[in-house]
Structures are given as structure tokens and as C-alpha cells.
């Protein structure tokens, strides 16, 4: 119980301290921090539109957070969520734009599976390279990110480009678009948010209640011990990367099916990297990740409203940076503390 409380307390404290430090920055630029934060909260939750906006932004962040968090639990550092997310959306977009007459019952799951498969396959390359050659996934996934960037920009300006020449693919078939849960004005909240929550449940059950999940975790915890215990390390490294990639691909494909309905040049927009901070803040716990993603999503949404006060959107990035620093610092402190204990 104490442990649970502690793991909640650290990120919450980190957020409060970060808001406090940023308040000084806001004072320094001559604005009232209380007013700024009030507007921030109102901008994120103050109206139906604001809530929809926040949830739209939170959806992909939950999924990339889960992708990276799952990787951490399995002992792989998947920096490639960005590329896997784009790959998932790109492949799904190129196929799902031809789904003319397929009914939604088939088209929606099929598109989701294609997106996840593309993400999984893309990440599995890095997993395979690690298992077979020992090439570190941090390096290979970054390389794969760049390949994705260039392939994507080639595709949207070349083979996939639509009429007017803006870098975007044609719209996916209406039957492959996610159903809309709520609509206010031009803003539509799709069922993507439910998918992301289900993915969190999946991660929890998989890691805690299944044998395969246990094996993946064991390899992540200590590969030598796991191998000694008869668990194949290379198989599980590939599997861990693939699942992590599937979650990132899911982030891309829900963004495609629920928000943009087409592939755009900068679709992933750094959300894969945000996944790293979210996994850190959420302590790699599925529930923690949901709240961490909600936090970042709300900050982003509210920051747009804050700009009306003349407070820059970068304040929110400062908040995010400080939170991550403090959460990471907590680990540093704990590690030092543990070392000391062991010595004495």
C-alpha cells in the first residue's frame, strides 16, 4: 500500500513543484500566474469543446505512453514509437483509402489490425537486430525513425499525393473511420479514446496475468536469470519490441481513423517522443500512463487558451520538462539511496 501511495505521490508532487517554478517564470514575463493557470484549466476542461479537445489530444499520448512503458517493463528502450506510429498510419492510410464498399464492421477492425501490424513489424526489425546481432535498439529505432520520416514524406508528395499538392494522402474510406462519440462544432471526439483505454487494460492483463507476459517481464528484469530459467531471451526481445511497436502503430492508426482521416506529412508530430516522458511520469504503470497522458494532453490544450493572455505556449513545455526532471531525479535519489544501503 505504501508503495502504491509513494508512486502516486512522486508524480503529483513533481507536477505541483513544476507549476510553482513555472509560476515564477510567468511572473517574470509580467503576467499573473494564478490567472494564467485558471485560464489553463478552463482551456482544458472549462467547456464541452475544451474537454473534447483534451481527450482528442490525450488519446494518442496514452497509446505512445503505453508503447514506451511496455518496452521499459520488458527491458527494451523503444525510442522508435515516433516512427512506428507514423508507419502504422501510413500503411493503414494507403490501404484503407481503397475500402470503398467494405462494411464498417469489417473495415474498422481490419484497418486497426493493419496499423498495429505495420507498427509491430517495423519495431520487430529493431528487436530482431538486437536479438541476433546485439545492435542496441536505441540506435536502430532512431535510424528507423528517419527512414519512416523520409518514406512518409516521399509517399505523401509522390505516390499518395492528392490533387492540390499539399503533402497529404487521400481520405480513407468512410467505412474505415471511427464512430464519433461526441461532436461540438467542427470538433469530433472519436471512439479512439475507448480503444486507448482498452489497450491499457490489455497491457495490465498481459503483463500481470499471462505466462508470456511473465516471460517478457522476466527477460526485461534480468535476461541471464531468465535464460537460466529456460526462457528464450531472443524470442522475447523480438516479441517485446513487436508489442511495443503494435501499441505505437495503434496510436498512429487511431489518429488516422479518428482525427485526420488521412495521412499528413507531420502526423506523428513528436507524440512518439512524448510517449517517453509519459511512460516516465506514469511509472510504466498502465493506469499511471493514462493519467500522465491526460495531464500532458490537458496542458497542451489549455496552453492554447493561455496564449490569449499573452502567455506563451512554451510555458507548458517548461512545466513538462520540470516534471520529467523531477520524476527522473526521484529515481536518481532512490538509486543513490539504495547503493548506500547496500554498502552499509
Amino acid at each position, binding site marked *: 500500500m505504501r508503495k502504491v501511495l509513494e508512486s502516486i505521490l512522486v508524480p503529483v508532487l513533481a507536477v505541483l513543484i513544476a507549476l510553482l517554478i513555472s509560476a515564477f517564470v510567468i511572473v517574470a514575463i509580467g503576467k499573473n500566474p494564478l490567472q494564467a493557470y485558471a485560464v489553463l484549466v478552463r482551456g482544458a476542461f472549462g467547456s464541452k*469543446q475544451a474537454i473534447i479537445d483534451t481527450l482528442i489530444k490525450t488519446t494518442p499520448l496514452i497509446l505512445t505512453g503505453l508503447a514506451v512503458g511496455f518496452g521499459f517493463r520488458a527491458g527494451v528502450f523503444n525510442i522508435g514509437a515516433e516512427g512506428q506510429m507514423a508507419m502504422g498510419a501510413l500503411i493503414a492510410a494507403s490501404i484503407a483509402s481503397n475500402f470503398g464498399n467494405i462494411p464498417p464492421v469489417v473495415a474498422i477492425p481490419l484497418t486497426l489490425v493493419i496499423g498495429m501490424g505495420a507498427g509491430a513489424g517495423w519495431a520487430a526489425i529493431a528487436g530482431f537486430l538486437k536479438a541476433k546481432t546485439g545492435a542496441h535498439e536505441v540506435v536502430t529505432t532512431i535510424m528507423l525513425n528517419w527512414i519512416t520520416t523520409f518514406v512518409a514524406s516521399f509517399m505523401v*508528395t509522390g505516390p499518395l499525393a492528392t490533387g492540390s499538392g499539399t*503533402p497529404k494522402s487521400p481520405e480513407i474510406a468512410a467505412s474505415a473511420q471511427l464512430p464519433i462519440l461526441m461532436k461540438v462544432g467542427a470538433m469530433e471526439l472519436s471512439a479512439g479514446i475507448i480503444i486507448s483505454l482498452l489497450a491499457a487494460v490489455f497491457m495490465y492483463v498481459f503483463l500481470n496475468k499471462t505466462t508470456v507476459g511473465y516471460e517478457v517481464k522476466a527477460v526485461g528484469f534480468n535476461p541471464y536469470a531468465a535464460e537460466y530459467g529456460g526462457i528464450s531471451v531472443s524470442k522475447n526481445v523480438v516479441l517485446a519490441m513487436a508489442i511495443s511497436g503494435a501499441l505505437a502503430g495503434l496510436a498512429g492508426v487511431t489518429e488516422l481513423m479518428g482525427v485526420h482521416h488521412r495521412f499528413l*506529412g*507531420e*502526423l506523428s508530430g513528436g507524440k512518439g517522443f512524448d510517449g517517453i516522458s509519459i511512460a516516465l511520469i506514469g511509472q510504466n504503470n498502465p493506469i499511471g500512463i493514462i493519467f500522465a497522458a491526460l495531464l500532458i494532453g490537458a496542458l497542451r490544450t489549455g496552453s*492554447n487558451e493561455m496564449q490569449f493572455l499573452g502567455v506563451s505556449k512554451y510555458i507548458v513545455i517548461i512545466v513538462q520538462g520540470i516534471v520529467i526532471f523531477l520524476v527522473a531525479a526521484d529515481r536518481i535519489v532512490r538509486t543513490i539511496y539504495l547503493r548506500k544501503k547496500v554498502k552499509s
Partner: protein
Amino acid sequence: MKKVLALLLMTLVLTAGFAFKAIMVTDTGGLGDKSFNDGTWAGIQRAAKELGVEAKVIMSNEQSDYIPNLTKAAEEVLKEKDGGIVFAVGFMMQDALEKVARQYPTVYFAGIDISFDKELPNVINFLFKEQESAFLVGYIAAAMTRTGKVGFVGGIPIPPVERFRYGYEAGIKAYMDLKGKKVTVIRGYTNEFSDPKKGKDLANSQFSQGVDIIFAAAGACGNGVIEAAKERTEKLAGKGYENIKKYALSGKPVYYAIGVDVDQDYMAPGVVLTSAMKGIDTAGYYGVMWAYKGQFKGGLKVLGLKENGVRMSEMKYTKEIIDKLAPGAIKELEYLKSLIIEGKVIVPDSEEALKAFTVKGVKLPR
């Protein structure tokens, strides 16, 4: 302190009378790009100041911000008694602007570089004949190159960027036709608009292939192109405008960059040869003015040389150098410009038109 208070009071009094708001929503490039977004914003602010109304800006972090930010801006405008206008800046906001503008038929919108398949009565779509200003800078580049190789660095090959390239290459072709000098163009794209580092890398790679002048139509990436040219020139001539000018005037070869969207000549005096300017500020200015004065009319508005919607910078720092090394070029340019305005020379705006383009019929005045 008192002064500040007085100023605050004054703006309060000034703005209290008019309940009109001009709000600009940027694309992901954001303010500080020293070209596209900053240019529009400058025009909006100028108009707002003249009219004594409020101007605000919302920067978008990511593409999923476009719809909510435009919605927010439209809601703000709706609250005002006398309305206002919402600017969407950048081609990427096309879908979002169309969706939001349909939801708020009583709010005025202006899209910069955004065109619709079906025009809306409450949206002005500002487009530019980028090719016309690029033609002029291309002509100067061809006149000034020492190596016979010039470069082009584009952002994403979207229509406005490509129009800059068509014009640039057409200007070079015109110079070749008229003067019989052989000039080749090396092209490259950064595939984005926000990272100067990418522009710099690409520029350096072109420079090492023998290019000595690069035209950048790549938003903030272009700042990196200018930096690369500056570093290389400074290595030869030393730091400071005076040194660069003296060195260039002595006839020794240096490296140049050509700016885009706004007058970027000041960013590296003597190194930025000229800038192909696009009247985004003009569009911002008139958008606000029209909406305020009730002269707003939706639909497509294409601005070219004739409308003073695109132009070339005044070459404040480089005019002397150009006059010395390419005598007569500026005068020839004035003549060509008049031909374009009269419609006697049509600068190509597509790949096919560029291939067919020629100025063989034109006779330069002696």
C-alpha cells in the same frame, strides 16, 4: 511605472470604443520563423494599430491543434460586438479552415496560401504569384554566379514552394537565353519548414558541389541556408558587412544566399544577395482592413507583381556589388519586371510551362 500605467490606460481607452478583434492562428512553424508567420503577423499588427483594434495570435503546436485553435478564435470574434477576422496561415490548415469556416458562417476568415475547391462567402483565400518575384531573383542569381552553378533549397514541395522554384529556374533560363551564359541548378528539399539545421546541412552540401548562390524557399530552414553562406563568406572575407563588401567588390568570389517571403537582406548584410518577397504582410493588412470597413468579399484573391503582392527586396546592402560585378543587370531586371506586369512575359507556374518557357522574343533595351 506611471508611464506604463498611462500607456495601459490609453490602450484601454483606445480599444474600448471598438469591439473588433483580429486573430491569427499560426501553423506548426509558429512565430519567430522570420518569414511566413512573422510576415503575416506584421501586416495584421500594422492594420490593427492603424485602426486601434486588438490583434491576437495563437500558435499551433501540432496539426490536431488547427481545428480547436480556429474554433477558439472564431468564438472570440463572435463575442465582439463589431466582429473581427480570423487568419489561418499556411497551406496545411486547408481542411481545418474549411471545416471551421462552415461552422461559423457569420465570422470572417482569411486563409493565407490556402485555396478551396469550393469557395466560401465568409473566407478570403489569399494566393500569391511566387513565381514572379522568384523570376527576378533567379535572374540576379544567374547574373552573379561565378561557378555557373546555383542552388535551390525548398521546404516541402508544396505548390507555393514549387512556384518559387519554377520562377527561379525561369529567371535563370531567361538570363541564359538573353546572355548565352550556361547556368545549372541544383535542387534539394528539407521536407519541413521549421529546423534551420536541415537547411544548413543541405546548403553546405550544395556549396561543396560547386554552387555559389542558393535560393531558399523553406521557411525557417532558410535561416540555416543564410547561416551557411555567411559562415563560408566570412571565412574568406572576414566578419562584418564592410569587410564582406570590400572583398566582394574586389572581384573575388564569395557565397551568397537569397532570402524568401519577407526582406531577409538584413539577416546577413552583404551575404543575402536579395529576397524574393511575398506580400503576406499585405494580405494580413488588407484582410483586417476589409473586414473592419465592411468591404469584405469572400473568394480567391491572387496577388502578383502587378498588385504589388510579390516583389524583390531593395538590395540595400548588395546593390553596389551587383552593379560592379554584373553591370546593367538591375536595369535589365526593371525592364523584365515591366514586361511581366504588362503580361508580355508570363512566368511559368507549372513544370510543363517551365519546360516550354523562353524569352527568345524579348529584346533588352540598350
